[in-house]
C-alpha cells in the first residue's frame, strides 16, 4: 500500500503506532501522532514504558509477547486528559515479526475511541446518578416508614386515650342529664321560673357536651376500624319521618319549612338503623344550621341511579359552600370560612363521620352547591335483598353474620 495513503487512513481513523526493538525502545512511529501527547515528536529512541505509564506493571506481559508466549496485550477505555477534555484510547501491543517469523520487537497501537467513550461515560454517569438517587430514596423511604410506624403508635395511643377519656366522661354525663331531666320534670319538688330556666340552660349545655363526647368516640372508633354495623332491612321513609318529628320543634323555632318527598313504594334499605339515623340527622342538622330563618329544607327519597341502591337527598336554601371550601368539606376538623364567620357551632367532624358511616354501608355521599343559593347532599344506601334479614359488617362477615352482598 502507498505509504502516504496508509498515513492518511491512520490519521483519519485516529490510530497511531510505534514499533520497538527487543529492548522496547521506539524505533519508528507514525499515524495520528498527536495521540502520543506532547512527547510524540521526540519519541524515537525512548523506552515504551516511559512514554506510556499504563504499561508499568505489565513488563512481564510485554516480555511474554517478545518471547512469543502471548499473542497480544490490550487495554481498553484508557482515559487521558488533553486540553481539558477526556480522550479515550484503546492500547494494543502485538509482536513485531521479521520476514523470517522471529519476534524483533513490539507493535504498539493507540486508537482514539473518544466518541464511544463519551457515550459510555454519559450512560454510566446517568445510570450511577440514578442509582445514587434510588439509594437515597430507599433510605428516605425507610426513614419515613420508621417515622410512620412511630406516628401510628402515637396515634393509636392518642386514640386509646381519647376513647378511654370519652367513655369515662359519658357515664357521669349521662347521670347528670338524667337527674337534670328529673329535676326539670319536678320529680323532686316544684321549681320556680328562674330555677327552671337555669336548669334548662344546664341541660342544653350537658346535651351539647354529650354530643361532643359521642362525636369524639365515633372518630376514635372510625379510625380504629372498630365501628360495627347491625345491618337490617330498614324502612328509610319511616326512619326519616321519625327524625323529622324530632327536628320539628327546632325547625319551627326558626320558621324553616321542611318537606319530605318519597314515592309510595320504596324497597327497604340495608342499613344500621342507629347509624342511618345519625347520617340523616347530621345532614338535616347541617341543612338547618346553614339555612336562614324562614328557609326551606327538602328531603327526597328515591331509587338511586346506581342499581341496587336507594338515594336520600337533603336540599336547603342556605348560604351554600364556596368553591374553595368544597374540596375539603369531608376533611376532619374542616370548617368552612362562612361557618366560622357566621359563628355556626360545630367541630368540623360531622361530615367526616357521616361520610365514614355512609362508606361503611357501602354507599356514597356527594353534594352540589351554589354559594348563596343552597346545597344538596346526596347519600346512597344499598337496597336490602329478600334474604337479608340478618347482620353483617362491610368487608367480611363476622361470626353469626348471614349477610349477602347486593353489589
Amino acid at each position: 500500500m502507498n505509504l502516504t495513503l496508509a498515513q492518511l487512513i491512520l490519521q483519519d481513523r485516529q490510530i497511531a503506532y510505534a514499533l520497538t526493538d527487543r529492548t522496547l525502545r521506539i524505533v519508528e512511529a507514525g499515524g495520528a501522532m498527536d495521540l502520543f501527547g506532547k512527547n510524540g515528536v521526540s519519541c524515537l529512541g525512548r523506552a515504551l514504558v516511559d512514554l506510556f505509564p499504563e504499561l508499568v506493571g505489565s513488563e512481564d506481559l510485554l516480555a511474554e509477547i517478545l518471547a512469543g508466549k502471548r499473542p497480544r496485550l490490550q487495554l481498553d477505555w484508557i482515559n487521558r486528559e488533553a486540553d481539558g477534555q477526556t480522550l479515550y484510547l484503546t492500547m494494543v501491543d502485538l509482536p513485531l515479526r521479521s520476514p523470517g517469523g522471529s519476534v524483533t520487537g513490539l507493535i504498539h497501537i493507540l486508537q482514539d475511541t473518544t466518541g464511544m467513550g463519551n457515550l459510555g461515560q454519559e450512560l454510566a454517569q446517568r445510570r450511577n446518578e440514578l442509582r445514587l438517587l434510588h439509594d437515597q430514596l430507599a433510605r428516605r423511604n425507610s426513614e419515613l416508614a420508621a417515622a410512620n410506624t412511630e406516628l401510628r403508635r402515637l396515634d393509636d395511643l392518642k386514640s386509646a386515650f381519647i376513647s378511654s377519656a370519652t367513655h369515662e366522661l359519658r357515664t357521669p354525663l349521662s347521670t347528670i342529664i338524667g337527674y337534670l331531666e328529673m329535676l326539670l320534670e319536678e320529680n323532686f319538688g316544684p321549681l320556680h321560673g328562674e330555677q327552671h330556666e337555669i336548669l334548662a340552660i344546664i341541660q342544653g349545655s350537658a346535651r351539647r357536651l354529650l354530643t361532643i363526647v359521642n362525636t369524639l368516640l365515633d372518630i376514635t372508633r372510625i379510625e380504629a376500624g372498630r365501628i360495627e354495623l347491625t345491618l337490617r332491612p330498614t324502612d328509610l321513609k319511616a326512619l326519616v319521618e321519625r327524625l323529622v318529628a324530632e327536628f320539628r320543634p327546632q325547625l319551627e323555632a326558626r320558621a324553616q319549612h321542611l318537606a319530605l318527598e318519597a314515592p309510595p313504594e320504596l324497597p327497604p334499605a340495608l342499613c344500621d338503623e342507629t347509624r342511618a339515623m345519625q347520617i340523616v340527622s347530621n345532614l338535616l342538622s347541617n341543612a338547618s344550621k346553614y339555612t336562614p330563618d324562614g328557609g326551606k329544607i327538602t328531603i327526597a327519597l328515591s331509587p338511586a341511579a346506581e342499581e341496587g341502591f336507594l338515594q336520600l337527598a337533603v336540599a336547603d336554601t342556605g348560604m351554600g359552600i364556596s368553591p374553595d371550601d368544597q374540596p375539603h368539606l369531608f376533611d376532619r376538623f374542616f370548617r368552612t370560612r362562612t361557618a366560622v364567620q357566621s359563628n355556626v357551632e360545630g367541630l368540623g367532624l360531622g361530615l367526616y363521620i357521616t361520610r365514614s358511616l355512609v362508606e361503611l354501608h357501602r354507599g356514597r355521599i356527594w353534594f352540589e352547591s351554589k354559594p348563596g343559593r343552597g346545597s344538596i347532599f346526596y347519600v346512597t344506601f344499598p337496597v336490602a335483598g329478600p334474604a337479608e334479614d340478618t347482620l353483617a359488617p362491610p368487608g367480611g362477615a363476622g361470626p353469626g353474620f348471614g349477610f349477602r352482598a347486593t353489589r
Partner: protein
Amino acid sequence: MTTTISKKVCLLGDFAVGKTSLVRRFVYNLFNDKYLSTIGVKVSRKAVAIPRQDGVVELNMILWDLAGSEEFEQLRDSYLRGAAGAVLVCDLTRPETLESLHSYAEDLLRVSPGARLVLAANKHDLTDQWRLTPQQIEAAAAGLHTSYYLTSAKTGEEVETLFRWLGQMLVEPTPGTSR
C-alpha cells in the same frame, strides 16, 4: 543514594465512593464536588520520596483509577495485572460500599498475589451522614489484613498519609505494621 522505582497502584471500590477525588487530591491537591463517573481507567502518576534504611527511594506511583461500575468487571483483570498495591475505597455514608471491598481485594490478589492493600473510608467530612462506624471499618480492615484511614478527598484529611503509608509498604522488603 536515591533510587527511583515505579509501582502500579490501583484504586478499587464501588462507583461514587471518591476514588477519582482521592487521586485528584493526592496528585494535584484539587477537589471538585461534582460527581463525574469514570469509565475504564485513568492513569496518573506522582513521585514521592520515601525514606528507607539504605537511603531515599523516589517512588513513582502510577495510580490506576478504575471504574467502579460493574460493567467493567470483565475488563478489571486486565487492569489489575501487575499492580503492586491498591487503595480499597468505601464511602462512610453508604454501608454497602464497605461490604463489596472484600470482593475487590479478592479479584486483585488473584491477579496480583503480592499486592499490598490499604483501606480508605472516604467522605469523613460528611459527619451528619455517616452510616458506618469506625469499629465497622476497623473490623473490615482487620478482615482484609490491612490498615485503614478515615479520609476526606474534600478536605484532604489523611489523603497524603494514606498514600505515603502505602508507598512505604511498596518500597519495604517486608510488610509494615498496621496503625
